[in-house]
């Protein structure tokens, strides 16, 4: 910044590297949106079915909103996509032009989106019991409607839910969350403002087995801080697991009650008023 080709920096007014005028974490311990360090944004899960999909979910985490639909397991459209002993997973991510403040169309071949899709695919390959569905294909379509930080975790969490809702056999949940650090204080679940400022990592955990299926980092994080944030993110994933499980159970109960076959159908009604 300082040496942009001008040898004599004394004469030019130095632009202080003052970041934005928003404090990431103020002295009272509040973040810019009123949360504290270890508080996650609101999570809203809606399982209403979209079009011809086998299951779909609108997963909303703070102001990040993704709509995920799953089709399959079904026969692959192309023979080359058929694998003889297990299912093929196909993930497609589409980002709405209006999802960020600045309107921007992304082409289908956008490298970032392809990378996101492939990350999601490789995260779920060991989680889905693909051997139960040989010679078939599972299509996961992700539509990003709104973005405000934590896109990858929202996609992962939403995909877990939609797969479960579609009745596809999974070994475990995948619960993902971002963790970052501002100066020396760790933060959980960063929004865009914080993601632009603080180094952060995304961690995805399989809560039952405690296995970590994904850790990514696009910024540079000091190695001494890594462990602390990593452990924190793992702890936060367990909290997420509770929330996601509860949502899934609510949906199942409501399904059972609509089918009218459950013994506890009437009882279940109380739960799903909000669905």
């Amino acid at each position, binding site marked *: *910044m300082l040496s942009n080709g001008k040898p004599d920096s004394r004469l030019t*007014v130095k632009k202080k590297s003052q970041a934005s005028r928003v404090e990431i974490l103020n*002295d009272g311990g509040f973040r810019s*949106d*009123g949360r504290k360090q*270890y*508080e996650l*944004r609101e999570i809203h899960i809606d399982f209403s079915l979209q079009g011809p999909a086998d299951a779909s979910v609108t997963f909303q985490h703070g102001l990040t909103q993704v709509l995920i639909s799953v089709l399959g397991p079904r026969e692959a459209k192309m023979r080359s996509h058929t694998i003889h002993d297990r299912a093929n997973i196909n993930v497609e991510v589409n980002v709405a032009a209006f999802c960020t403040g600045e309107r921007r169309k992304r082409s289908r071949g956008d490298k970032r989106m392809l990378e996101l899709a492939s990350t999601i695919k490789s995260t779920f390959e060991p989680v889905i019991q693909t051997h139960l569905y040989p010679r078939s294909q599972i299509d996961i379509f992700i539509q990003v409607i709104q973005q405000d930080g934590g896109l990858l975790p929202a996609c992962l969490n939403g995909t877990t839910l939609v797969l479960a809702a579609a009745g596809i056999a999974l070994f475990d949940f995948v619960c993902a969350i971002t963790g970052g650090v501002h*100066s020396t204080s760790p933060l959980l679940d960063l929004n865009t403002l914080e993601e632009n400022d603080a180094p952060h990592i995304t961690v995805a955990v399989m809560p039952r087995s405690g296995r970590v299926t994904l850790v990514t980092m696009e910024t540079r994080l*000091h190695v001494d801080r890594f462990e602390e944030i990593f452990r924190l993110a793992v702890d936060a994933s367990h909290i997420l697991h509770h929330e996601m499980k509860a949502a899934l159970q609510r949906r199942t109960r409501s399904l059972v009650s609509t089918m009218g076959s459950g013994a506890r159908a009437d009882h279940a009604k109380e739960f799903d008023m909000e669905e």
Partner: protein
Amino acid sequence: MPLITIQKRPREEAVVTQRKFFKKTARGKVIKVLRERYLRDDVYCGIVECKLCSDAVNAVLPRSGDLTHKQFPNGHYVLPDTNVFLSQMDLIESTSFSVPIVLLQTVMDEVRHRSLPLYNRLKALLKADDKKAWVFYNEFRSETAIVREEYETPNDRNDRGIRKGAEWYNVHISLAHPPVRGQRAGQLARVILLTDDAANRQKAEAENIPCVSIRKYVEGMKDASQLLDLLSATGSEELEPTNASTARKTLYAEYLPTAALLAGVKASKLYQGHFNANQYNYLEGTVPVPAFSKPVLLVGRENMNRAVHGDVVVVEVFDESEWKAPAEEVIDQETTLKNDDAEDSDEDANSDSEFHLRAEAKALCSQGKNTILSAEKQPTGRVVGIIKRNWRACVCHIDPTSLPSAVATSFSIQTVFALPLSRLLPRIRLRTRQAPNLVSQKILVTIDRWDAHSRYPEGHFVRALGRAEDKETEQESLLLEFEVPYRPFGKAILDCLPPEGGQWVVPPKSDTEPVWRDRLDLRNLDICSIDPPGCQDIDDALHARRLQNGNIEAGVHIADVSHFVHPDTPMDNEAAARGTTVYLVDKRVDMLPSLLGTNLCSLRPHVERLAFSVIWELTEDADIVNVRFSKSVIASKAAFEYEEAQLRKDDPNQNDSITQSIRLLNSLAIKFKAKRMAAGALNLASPEVKIHLASSESSDPIDVEQKELRETNSLVEEFMLLANVSAAKRIEEVFPQTAVLRRHLPPPKANFEKLQDILMKRKGFKLDVSSSGTLADSLDKCIDPTAPTFNTLVRIMATRCMLAAEYFCSGSVSRDTFGHYGLASPIYTHFTSPIRRYADVLAHRQLAASISHTPLHPSLHSKANVERIMDVINRRHRMAQMAGRASVEFYVGLALKGRTEALAKARGKNDGKAVEAETGVIEEAFVIRTFRNGVGVFVFQLGLEGLVTFKHDVQFDADNYTLTVPSNSGDVTISVFDKVKVRIDVEKDKNTQRGRVKMSLVSPVESKDL
């Protein structure tokens, strides 16, 4: 494991919990931004023992509020709005303003948005021990969060938020104190909204919120008379719109709107730069801009258009035909404008101002007269706008002549002039009730504004420093003038010291002891320190010994400050903010608490101390075979003064190991120096004098003498340079992005032009400035056999042409600008004085990390962070140097005064009566600069620079730098580098109370009658 929770944000309340706004980017694109907000109930009120906020920790607001205000006998807290902080920060900071303050987040954010420096002062205020202030995060509390309504300006929204906050507090207090039977209601403390906005007050009253204007509030306070003066001018305006301000004539052109300025600068039609006032001529200033090789000249008050020294201004450059040369004349504000009246200086009908306008016009005119060579012409222009003001508190005197004499004892409000200590600042108009009391005192004044219809800036009184001429006062005013932080260390800082205090010792050696981890045991080495006399903070010690292979081992041991000062502690932050220890003649303002500086870290003799050692293996020819860095434990065997070490070295009878070690070091140092000189290092000079004080307590100066340099000074210097260079290489290797280094940029050739010209014309010497080596050579050749000090004088003048060395972060500038010009070293840092310089502490931390002793704190991995620290310490370093110099100057003045009085007494004895005109010390001096109406002289013996002015016309030849002065015995020519005799008087200027050094020429010509 911390408690992790998921926050809820009910959808029905999306209006309150989501914020939507449009933002224009730098490119002009409009972006819609959506942000969310989580409202909560665990935002506490901060009142001690509040029943509703029982969870609140460290609440600071006293339970009953403040009971001393007349208007609010039941106790109250104040809740100031944003403008109060923006305009009345001095009032709030005053120690007599001790009311508990409720600070709303809305206010904090607005202050931060408007002015970062003020925001930082506000934050410092929150931490101050004597203030009771609580930040209430009203935007996050569910009851007080508000949304901007349609057609509401952001300002109105914030005002409403502030009112809402005040309302909530009052409700909250009454809820927390439910009426108890048998006790009368209405005894509760209240929160008072403090605002100067009349409309806001009206609305508040309508909503039944107690509110008051700041002036009214202060009037009801205990120390009203003192505090009222602290009110800044913006506050007083509202009450006294008496003077028909509309009828006033505008004296200055209005500034262009900001957008026009930015567009102009972008299109290269206008130029932006720092405004530098000319200290010899108050009607002239310059603005260096990159577009021209010479700075843009601003001539006359109208063209300088209310710019104050240090402001970032935008200038318009005139056509080349209107370009002028600098006036080369001394114009003194005080003499020219002596008769200007503070009360009505801006009324054009006033005869006084007519008079001074004429005086000013004359002064300006005289420079138009002479025919100027086009080579001397400089781009000339005028200020059209100001980007950033550099207004700070400055030390002033009240001009007693501006005081209406009839009311010298009254306490009515008066308008007076405050004369800043610094010659670079204009005088400031001040309204005060205490004027008669303040006349003989030094006071601190802040500039508030400078309107287009006012000739002078307006300011307000901040505080009195004490009697002028008083040593304490002068000292404090020096520290304030150069913004040296000099408060005693706070409790949080002292808590960072080892709990054992002065009893702390190096623990006995053992494998399990953490202090001894990775530390070399060098206690058996013959280590000694060599320092100036009276040095208490010894941060370096040395040793040298022969190795068995014939090579020499030499070691420099630096106090291990980083062992005690850990990163990101209050002590570390304070040290970073102070940047450096400031040495005044009779006082040292420490960077670190003195327990560390003069005891635990100081490498005192005969005690074990922790050190950071640099150990070289050197050949007989002083070539480095290898270098090691290690933390160590040493026990210095002796602490010498330079002179003592020198005597010991030269005494052939002394042959103990320490003496031999010094001799060995000395022989190496001589070789190092020779190598350095061969590489092109400069031998620079700056005027250095030493002040003898009568005794350590009285601090009365008795004499001044030139500093003497011995061989041992050079010995220590060479080894410190070597250690610094070695450390610099190492940390740059390991941390290429964030190493803390120091560099000295080569000076631009244009800086030397004038000196080269003078030397050529006056003495026939040629100065080759193509590189530091050639410059060193040509400086060596500038010898005048008749004047042995001439060479030093040229060196001093050459030094002034150079740029200042600076600290920098290695990642922020390109690799080829790392070099240190003066030392002719490709890389350099400061490593050897961590007790008194913060840069050295950082270098220590990085070096310790580079040898894997202690992991580096994350803050030192961040380039932005290191850059920020570098900015601060560069500034502090510069200020500290100037403060030190100013302090020496003050004492030289005092010493001269003493000498003059002694002389007068002696003469009085001889003649029986003292002759008034014959007072003063006569000293030899060199002429260093010629003006149209005077000469600048440099008195070697005292390291003092002065000005001799002639009242009558003299002939001035700018090309040859000569001045022809008529005298009884024909015309006498004085030129630059001439040796003259001057009489130096210290006279107390009647107007300014400034003990000022006055010089007049004695030979070759008496200037008294001229």
